[in-house]
Each structure stands twice: as structure tokens, then as C-alpha cells.
């Protein structure tokens, strides 16, 4: 099968600390790989460095130590073959839905119109091509960003809590749609979230990160067929295993299991 789509080898990351303090160690000894076409979620407690990890993999940050390889080649900076979908919504407010989605398509591409129509339809925004982002809801804006990423035809999509700012129902719907799109397009997706349920609903494998300095604590494969039954014992078992990894109880109000704080 050749090199994995993404491979991380012994990655370390620290930031210079505030005046007086030493450097802040965010990541230590992170190693992992993502196969082509795989959907991998990274979960971890807030502030554990999972966004930092994704930014390193995408090439927006430079690691302190270790290597990030995409298709066997070291990453130096961002690249149109690997598109990042931002938590805070990175679509351009001065462009219409149409121009946002076309942003990553080469201006001379004769299939431009065709590609646009395909992805507008895929994310369910037909009829809104001429609208500006400010006229859309949060969920629709996030769909525009996903369509913009897909239209650039990347091999890999990195998603940093892309549904974090959406309400519960919209989030559920976006997950269903994302899985449908992923199944149609077969991109490699590396998806960061702090929402354990979200990770288990989406991923082929869930990587659980520890507290800072973070490392990959456990890899939980989720082999359930899609569409996933959120009541099935296997789903609940996978979810509870991740809860346990993070030192959390599933029952609200129960005493937390003793954890080395």
C-alpha cells in the first residue's frame, strides 16, 4: 500500500513560556499514522494540544523535534493538497458562496462550473450560490468551508473542531452529512474534537490524547458499520472505553474514579 497518508514520528513541541517561566511543553513523543482514505479522530481534554498537533501536521507550525511525513515526504508548510477546515470558520466574508467555493480551483480550469455545481449540491447549498456569508447560518457557513476544501480536490482534509460553534441539532446533521460526503469522495480525514460522542460517531479510529504535555494515550478502533446505531452495545462500549481513558465517569454525578491529578 506504500507510505501512509500521514505519518508522525516522535513529535515534540514546546512554546517559549511567559516571562520568568520556562518553555511550555505541549506535545511529547507523539507517533501515529493515518492510512489513505481513513477517517481518524483525535480527542483529548481541552487545552491538551490537539489543535497544536493538527497545526503542526498541516504545516502552519514548526515542531521542536520529530517528523511529520505526508506520502513519505517531510512537511514544510501548508499545501493545497491538504486543506485545513478551521474551527473559527475561514470562509471569506467579502466573497459570495460561489466565489468562496471556487477559491481553490485554478482560474483556467475548464471544469470550474461543473465542480462548483457538484459541491454546492453535495453540501446542500443549491440556490444560495450568490449569497454572502453574513446572510447564512453558522451551519451553512461551515458547509461552505467544507465545499471550498473539497473543490480544491485535496488528498487530505484536516478539520479542527469544525462543528464546535454549532448548536446540538445542527452538529448531528453535519456529522451525518460529513460521513456521506466522505464515503462519496474517499478523502483522508484527520479530525480534532473534544467531543467523545462525535469522535465515535465519525471515526474509523479514535486517538485519545493525554493531558499536557500530551501524547497518544490510546488508540480505539471503531469497526461499527455506517450509518451507526447510537444505541448499539458496541457503540456504547467504544464510547465508554474512551471516557475511561480520559479518567471520566459515564454517569453524571457519580464520583470520579481516582485519577493521578
Amino acid at each position: 500500500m506504500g507510505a501512509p497518508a500521514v505519518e508522525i514520528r516522535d513529535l515534540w513541541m514546546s512554546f517559549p513560556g511567559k516571562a520568568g517561566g520556562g518553555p511550555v511543553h505541549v506535545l511529547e513523543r507523539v507517533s501515529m499514522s493515518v492510512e489513505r482514505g481513513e477517517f481518524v479522530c483525535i480527542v483529548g481534554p481541552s487545552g491538551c494540544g490537539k489543535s497544536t498537533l493538527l497545526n503542526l501536521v498541516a504545516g502552519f507550525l514548526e515542531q521542536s523535534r520529530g517528523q511529520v511525513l505526508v506520502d513519505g515526504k517531510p512537511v514544510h508548510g501548508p499545501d493545497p493538497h491538504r486543506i485545513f477546515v478551521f474551527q473559527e470558520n475561514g470562509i471569506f466574508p467579502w466573497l459570495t458562496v460561489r466565489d468562496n467555493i471556487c477559491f481553490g480551483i485554478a482560474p483556467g480550469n475548464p471544469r470550474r462550473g461543473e465542480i462548483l455545481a457538484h459541491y454546492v449540491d453535495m453540501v446542500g447549498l443549491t440556490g444560495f450560490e450568490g449569497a454572502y456569508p453574513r446572510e447564512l447560518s453558522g451551519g451553512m457557513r461551515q458547509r461552505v468551508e467544507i465545499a471550498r476544501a473539497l473543490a480544491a480536490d485535496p488528498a487530505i482534509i484536516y478539520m479542527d473542531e469544525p462543528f464546535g460553534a454549532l448548536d446540538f441539532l445542527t452538529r448531528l446533521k453535519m456529522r451525518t452529512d460529513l460521513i456521506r460526503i466522505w464515503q462519496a469522495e474517499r478523502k483522508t480525514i484527520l479530525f480534532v474534537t473534544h467531543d467523545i460522542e462525535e469522535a465515535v460517531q465519525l471515526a474509523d479510529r479514535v486517538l485519545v490524547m493525554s493531558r499536557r504535555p500530551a501524547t497518544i494515550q490510546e488508540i480505539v478502533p471503531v469497526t461499527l458499520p455506517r450509518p451507526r446505531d447510537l444505541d448499539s452495545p458496541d457503540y456504547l462500549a467504544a464510547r465508554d472505553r474512551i471516557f475511561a481513558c480520559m479518567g471520566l465517569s459515564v454517569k453524571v454525578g457519580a464520583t470520579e474514579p481516582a485519577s493521578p491529578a
Partner: protein
Amino acid sequence: MSGAADEAIAETVAPVPARANRNPIAARVGLPLLVSAGLLVLWHVAVRVSGSDLFPTPADVLLGVVELARKGLLLKYIVASLFRVTVGFGLAVLLGVPLGLLLGWFQRLFYAFNPMIQILRPISPIAWIPVAILWFGVDDRAPVFLIFLASVFPITVSAMAAVQNIQPVYIRAARNFGLSRLDLFRRVIFPATLPQVLTGIRIALGVAWLVVVAAEMIAVNSGLGYLIIDARNAGKRYDLVVAGMVMIGLIGLALDLLVRQLERFDEVRWGYSR
């Protein structure tokens, strides 16, 4: 996915507060007219009561405007003032916008030039009048220079701040799509800064209009500023002084409304509605 469509329709129809909907035209046109009329009456009565024979009533001012128009001076002076503002302000936009964008983008340029800009900026353009006369004598170049000075700083500083305030996510998205430096500027930095640049331009135009009047009082012999000082010096014609003031106010309002129209374009509207 009709859910998305429903969602959008629900959210594009903005709720209108019930109170704002009551007689909007009557309130927005009627009230200012009422206040203006009230103030004019008050003015008239105040002049009559004080028995002043120098300070004009509103009617005297209106006659003064008519007199200036008949003599052909009104249009001539307005054109003279607007011409100076157009040239000085136009030069300030042409220099200030690119300069501000460069200083905002290149940190070293910012370090090098910003302190000097911050020292020159608070010097009133009025303080430059003697210098302008020394350099350019008494012709159009002196007020044009002063207007340029007055407007170039607000324009430069707002363009500079606009670049520094760009949401980092836009830059990162642009880099992710592999934009060249030129494209990054053309397709992201320029449109991202346009709303704030336009606001700087609007503020600068207001300042330019203030300064042209002051400059014309000293450095030239035409324009609305000259009209005011000349009417005062040649026979204490306060009806013409106030007529000039009224024209300045009305034209200033018109200029501001004109630039505000630019803020309604879709390319920049996103920057104001937050």
C-alpha cells in the same frame, strides 16, 4: 437537504422590532425638519430681541446666498474649494492607502516609520500654514498641500491598522490554498482591509473639508473660506459670513453621505455589520 434551505430562509428574514416600524418615514424625516424649523425660529427671534444690526436673521442669510449666486461667486467658490479638496485628498488616498498597507504588512517598515508618523500626525494642519506659504506662495498649491497633510495620516494609519487586524484565519486559509504573494495581496489582504480603509477615507474626507476652509482664509483669494474672511473684512457682511458657513455645512454633509454610499457595497458591508 431541504433543511438547510429552511434554516437559511428563517435566518435571512431579520426580525423587525415592533417599535421601529411605527411611522418610520414620519419620524426620520419629520423630526429633523421640526427641530431645524424650531432652531431657525429661535435664531430669528434671538436676533430681533437682541437688536443686533450686524448679525443676520435666517432670512438675511438666504438673501445673502441668493446675492452670491447672482454674482456668480457661489458656484465659483464652491468649485474652487471642492477642486482643492479633490486634488489634495486624492493624492493622500493614492499615497496613504498603499503606504499604510505596506507598513501594516512588513513589520520592519512599521518599526522604521511608525514613530515618525505618530509624531507628525498630531500636528494640526493649521500649524503648517506658514510653512505652506513659504514653500508654495499664495496660490492653489498651498491649500492642496495642507489638505494632503491633513488627510494622509488618518488614511495611512487606518490602512496600517486594517492589515494588522486581519483575522489570522483568512491569511492561513489563503496560504493553505497556495496563493502567490501577489494573489495573497489581491485576493485576501486588499478585500479584507477594504472596510476599515474606507472608514479611514471617510474620516479623512471630513478633516480635509475642515482644513480647506482654514487654508483658504489665509493662503488664497477664492473658495468658501476666503468668502467668509473677505465678507468680514470688506464691510462686516455677516449675512455673507453665515451664508458661507451654511454652504460649508451642507457640502460637508453631502460629501459624508456620498462616502457612506460606498459602505453599502456587498464587498465591504460585512465589515460593518458586526
